[in-house]
């Protein structure tokens, strides 16, 4: 099959949607399909050969965080040309309600379009203007996928109709084995966090408050934080006597990220909301890290209601500190959670997921038509 994937956010900036598209593209290529991805990108040279750049993206607030989007006539022309040259059997757009390339692709293309909704956002845009703009482009979509119940609910509220639930995939084999970073986790134990430090919904501040409690109780315990953001801002939130035990790695490369999951005794996902699946959570599971996560609906489901990872009350730093403490004191429980997480994450392995996605493609494929302008 010739498949065109559309990524709405800048390829160079790490993010859940971009990683999803990369892994999906590679899994589809492994299955023998022809795949082309169009994405905004700042640096055209650093792109994998299946990615076609659509020009630079501009950062704007979108859905409660900042997204790098591409829009306007330049992007529209590039998408139009890509669709025409690609002659795809199926066009698969991601996050089509974001004001970026995916919406443009729906606008310019005819023929079978599959869309995947990633984000879960409450219906906030109280705009009569947005409705018809979205509707006319989105009604061309013939197959819809949601990566989580929350994303599905968002989709139903915004557009009506229903969607197939296909959870996010994780490249399990890529995370399964790695050496811990030198010196980690160390004698006194270590807690890990991965994600944007300055994005409130990732919940780092909840973890920092919990570390204030538990770090004082356990003199050797360290906190390992990886992810982009302002390091000084984070350090300022940590009491002076704990500062040397909070290690900030900043943005890390893919291999180092895998090492981070293997470098800690407890991995923490304190997200406070908005997360529809939690790629980070699935990656930590694939690495077999004992997990403590906030009790968001999506997390609860991925962690099998608490069997594949401890849950704590969303936003409650004391509860988080207590949960971390329990795990640090109980190596047997950690081993049990690790094994359960490794087993549970198989459902989310891309090799499993991609077959479901291909089934959706086949369902929307007409007898022998290709997409034409």
């Amino acid at each position, binding site marked *: 099959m010739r498949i065109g994937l559309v990524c709405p956010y800048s390829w160079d900036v790490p993010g859940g949607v971009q990683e999803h598209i990369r892994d999906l593209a590679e899994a589809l290529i492994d299955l023998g399909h022809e795949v082309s991805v169009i994405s905004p990108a700042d640096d055209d040279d650093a792109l994998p050969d299946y990615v076609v750049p659509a020009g630079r993206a501009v950062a704007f607030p979108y859905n409660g965080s900042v997204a790098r989007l591409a829009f306007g006539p330049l992007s529209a022309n590039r998408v139009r040309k890509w669709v025409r040259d690609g002659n795809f059997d199926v066009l698969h757009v991601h996050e089509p309600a974001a004001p970026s390339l995916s919406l443009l692709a729906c606008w310019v293309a005819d023929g079978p379009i599959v869309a995947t909704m990633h984000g879960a956002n409450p219906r906030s845009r109280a705009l009569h203007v947005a409705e018809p703009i979205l509707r006319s*482009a989105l009604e061309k979509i013939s197959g819809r996928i949601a990566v989580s119940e929350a994303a599905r609910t968002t989709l139903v509220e915004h557009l009506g109709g229903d969607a197939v639930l296909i959870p996010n995939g994780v490249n399990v084999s890529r995370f399964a084995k790695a050496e811990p970073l030198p010196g980690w986790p160390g004698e006194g134990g270590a807690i890990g966090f991965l994600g944007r430090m300055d994005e409130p919904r990732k919940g780092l501040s909840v973890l920092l408050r919990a570390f204030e409690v538990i770090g004082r109780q356990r003199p050797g315990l360290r906190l390992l934080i990886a992810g982009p953001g302002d390091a000084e801002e984070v350090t300022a939130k940590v009491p002076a006597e704990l500062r040397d035990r909070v290690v900030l790695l900043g943005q890390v490369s893919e291999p180092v990220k895998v090492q981070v999951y293997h470098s800690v005794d407890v991995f923490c996902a304190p997200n406070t909301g908005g997360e529809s699946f939690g790629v980070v959570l699935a990656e930590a599971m694939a690495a077999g890290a004992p997990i403590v996560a906030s009790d968001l609906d999506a997390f609860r489901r991925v962690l099998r209601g608490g069997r594949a990872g401890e849950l704590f009350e969303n936003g409650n730093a004391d509860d988080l500190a207590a949960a971390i403490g329990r795990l640090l004191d109980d190596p047997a429980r950690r081993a049990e959670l690790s094994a359960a997480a490794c087993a549970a994450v198989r459902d989310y392995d891309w090799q499993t997921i991609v077959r479901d996605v291909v089934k959706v493609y086949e369902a929307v494929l007409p007898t022998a038509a290709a997409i034409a302008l």
Partner: protein
Amino acid sequence: MSTPALLTTIAVIAVISVYISWRAGRLDRMHARLEAARASLDAALVRRSSVALELASSGLLDPAASLLLADLAHDARSASAGRELAESDLTRALRAVFSQPEVGASLLGREGADELLAELESTAHQVFLARKFYNSAVAATVAARRRWLARVLRLAGGAPMPEFFEIDDTLAPAGMDDQGTDMPHLSG
């Protein structure tokens, strides 16, 4: 106290009171000018976001740009605390769309395009001017209120200290404005 001395004292007190009340009146007029400037700045910003909304719903632009403009125009109108950021975001979105060289070709001969673009440019000018005038009124008022007499006698009463309104309001990307003024222009 002798009569001439008393008369002199009364005269001095009278002069001082007149001076103080003149200073207070001047401050009062400055606050009035400030309020008027703020009102026209608000009006200009609201007009600009209306035109942005109109552009968004006109079908002249692609749906992604339309959606973003609609979203940001809505944010700019409903923001109170983050007004400056929201207005700057709207400016950046307008600039991102209209600085693309393809925009001319995509709008060429489309019905209503010229009118809307002219209106957008004119509201952008209004915002630029209104903001400039408002900020100079703020500067003058703040300077007057910082003077010793105004501070000691609290001549400004309970009026809050005015604040500058700082937003990005340049529509053309840097270096593209060759019109010889610092007024914002759509490129091309």
